[in-house]
């Protein structure tokens, strides 16, 4: 019998092109948006590496480039210049379909506004990534979905629609969905930004448990208190990484 998660390879999925053994490796990434007001540089020559099993928080003001940075990692957006390597994949070279399939299997994403499909039940929302990526058999998908719901404490709500549960519960479902295909990386864009502090704490505890199972988590947050409890915080301003700080505290604390 399979577990909820497979223990992620501490060394990632192997080195790419003989480079160092980073799980995530952004090299000279620049992102420029063309707006009516002219060019807007969202990221400027960013270099960043993240190791397997790390819990990284990205901090910065609104419009600083935090979301753009994680969009580069998830492949949601593409760099105007520079390269993005995740595991052994050069993510910036994948086309839209390759990216979708790769992301579905390797990166779980959690959004601030949950983004659950409103017409599907909670369980179906979790099974959807497995369905699209053809992971597991249909029976296993349902069993796995229920296990993930148990993990986030929502198994009783499996057959409800998202609108029937609270925001905090929806975010837990979104985390369960992010883990559906057992990806080694979880990226969360302000996952607690829309939640009260108690619920936010609960979400953070779940992340802590995920780190214990070997997952790598990159989280954008405004919450300095939460940020202080991760392995590493990255401060970003005007599209550039201004400071990186290694935290000594353990997640459990």
């Amino acid at each position, binding site marked *: 019998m399979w577990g909820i998660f497979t223990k992620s390879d501490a060394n990632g999925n192997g080195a790419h092109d003989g480079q160092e053994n980073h799980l995530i490796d952004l090299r000279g990434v620049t992102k420029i948006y063309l707006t009516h007001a002219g060019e807007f540089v969202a990221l400027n020559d960013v270099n960043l590496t993240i190791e397997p099993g790390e819990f990284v928080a990205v901090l910065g003001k609104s419009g600083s480039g935090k979301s753009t940075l994680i969009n580069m990692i998830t492949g949601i957006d593409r760099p105007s210049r520079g390269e993005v390597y995740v595991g052994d994949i050069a993510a910036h070279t994948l086309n839209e379909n390759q990216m979708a399939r790769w992301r579905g299997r390797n990166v779980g994403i959690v959004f601030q506004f949950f983004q659950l499909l409103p*017409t599907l039940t909670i*369980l179906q929302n979790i099974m*959807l990534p497995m369905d699209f990526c053809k992971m597991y058999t249909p029976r296993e998908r349902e069993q796995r979905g229920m296990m993930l719901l148990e993990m986030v404490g929502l198994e009783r709500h499996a057959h409800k629609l998202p609108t029937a549960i609270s925001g905090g519960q929806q975010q837990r479902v979104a985390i369960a969905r992010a883990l559906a295909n057992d990806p080694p990386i979880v990226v969360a864009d302000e996952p607690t930004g829309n939640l009260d502090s108690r619920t936010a704490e609960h979400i953070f505890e779940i992340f802590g448990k995920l780190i214990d199972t070997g997952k790598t988590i990159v989280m954008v947050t405004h919450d300095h208190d939460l940020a202080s409890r991760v392995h590493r915080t990255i401060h970003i301003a005007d599209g550039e990484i201004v400071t990186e700080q290694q935290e000594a505290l353990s997640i459990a604390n």
Partner: protein
Amino acid sequence: MRIGIQLAPRWHKILNDVLENKARTILVVLAIAVGVIAFGGVLTAKEMAVTDMNQAYLATHPPEIFLYGSPFTQRTERAIEQMPHVDGAQGWTTAWLKMEYNSEWSNIDLYAVQDFSDMRVGVVEPIDGDWPPKTREIWFERATIDYLGTAPGKTITIELSDGTRRQLTVGGTIHDINAVPPNLSNWPQGYVTLETLKWLGMSTNFSYVAISLEDSITDLGQIEQIRTDISDRLERYGYQMWGGYSPTPGKHWAADQVEAFSMVLALIGALTLVLSGFMVTNTVSSLITQQKRQIGMMKTVGATGGQIFGLYLLEICGIGLFALLVSIPLSLVLGSVFANTIAGYLNFDISRFRMTYWVILLQLAAALAVPVLAASLPIARGIRTTVREAVSDYGIGGDVKQGWLDRLVARTRVLSRPILVSLQNAFRRKGRMALTLITLTIAGAIFMSVFTLRHSLAQELERVMSLYDFDVEVYLDQYYSARRLEQEAMRVPGVDHIEGWTFAWAQRIKSGQDTDEIEGGGFQILAPPIGKTYLKPDILEGRWLCPEDENALVISTAMLAQEPDIKVGDTITLDIQGKEREWLVVGLLNAGPGERVAYANFPYLSRLTGMPGMVYDVFVFTQEHDLQTQQRVANAVAEQLKSAGVLVGQSMTMQEITNTTSSQFDLLIGFLLSMTVLLAIVGGLGLTSTMSLNVLERTREIGVMRAVGATNGSIRGIVVVEGMITGLLSWLLAIPLSFPLATGLCTMIGDVFFEFPLTVSFSPVGIIFWLAVALVISVIASLIPAQRAARISVREALAYE
């Protein structure tokens, strides 16, 4: 743990999408269904009507050849039956008389055969009564029974050409598919035995012989060759041959018209289907816009573009299939109603209510292909949305740009603000507006075109009738001196003057493939008196007859359709009563629908037929031209002529001739209008859908408007006025579009029924009528969305994503 969900989540999504917004799904299903019903219904009707009509026709052992000559008797029948390739011959005697029933007089055509119980060609079928007909009995065609409102056992009075009256008992009812029903001919047909005709004092010689050939002979060229051979042989036996013709083998006389008209209806049906596709495009575009985030989310969790495309396409296919399920029974009903109406009109039966597999297959293809094609573009455009765009797009109307209309509206001071908002709203989704407008515009243009066709037909009829400026036509039983007839007729009060015409049957002689000569189609040559004639010839090419013309011929367009190789200036050979003469075609004239005739000068033709100065047809001109005067004079002239010993066949007033012709087109217009109603339904559904989508997408805006003081009435008003603007605009666009469409329709219908394109005469009634229809459709289509908009609360609106 609850295990056992069988469907994968993506299929659940499809199902939930379909069920979530039931109104939207129902509208799309209805739109596709109406298109498929219109398309399938017409094809079903065509298949049922044409097949059953031809099968019923073939079952009567129909003739391939009609030969006219004298004196045809039973011996002639037997002689023809002995000739090569002949399978059977049936002699028919006809008499054109007057009849009285329920104190009303009308013309009647009597048909008689030697033995009704032993018919070999063009067999009639008894329906009720003691078959076969007996002496002094008259049997009616079933359509005539209904037309007259008579029944077996009743009596009718027949007036002979010399004025003698005899009573006949209605013996029973028969069905004769080869007969033109009285709703088209405007007078009844009766069937009697030769003995009865003899009792009535009429000739029992056959007027014509209907001949059927061996089954293997189906080529018209070969049939014409056989007809020539038979005609030649009969001539050699001493018969005087008047002419003959061969109908298209194996086809009922109305089959070509029914097929061609069905194709026009099917075209409108297909157009309805295409327009319903536009509604699918609008709905899917809106669905995709609404679900942009969901698409982004699906891509985030691993869905490829192809998977998402397939997902939505499958949803549309499901809706298409559902629409098909609704459509099949309804299109069968519609098809059956259409087929039965045609059958009732043309006097045949639809054997059974049935499904036709190829029509079902076509409907299946249409129900899938149209929505799939219509939805593909918006889906493809939607799935190109990147995850970043999808998850970052929210708020009120982010894509609104200020165009010229908005700038104009901003400066307008005349209209109230809510009306200006309606005006701006109508053009916010330009693509959606364009598709809705196209649907309504095409529906409107076709509606106007049908009215124009109706108007053009009426105008054409009036024009044709104006060519024949007489009041009463009197058919005689034999030739009489023109001078004598004039003297008698002028005794009747109210008669202004008369014209006597003669006529002759002519057979064109063409060079055959093997140097043998073969006969072309037979036709009538009509000869008006030289100089002053009531006929105002509508010459299309060449010239009208000059007094000095001898063997000059002016042919009609309908005759040209039968003999398309003839050109003005050609010399053609005609056989008239066994005399072959060369004729110079000097002109082409439009003589009206189906008039396969040619005109020649009276002196030359009457000499050629051996009846110099004698006429067969009398046209009476009355001093007053109202219907009562025409009827009174018609009866009085007939009486006067009979009292002078002239044998009078039938007489008709101009009004009766006009009614007969115009009634033939009522069904045509009725069918076209019913198809337009289906188009209008699709247009209305399209507008309802567009307005619903507009309201749905502007939920937040409506909330904001309510927050700043808009009442229910003003919100409702904004939506309804927006719908009316769309309706009004479609009306304006439909007017110019109706011009080429009406021209096409008039050309098509003219070619099928008149053998030349109809002159287009635009109908202002259609234009005004459609304005009213378009506004009513717009108001009805907007009311439900308007009601929904008025119910939206501020809280609910601002929470809407």
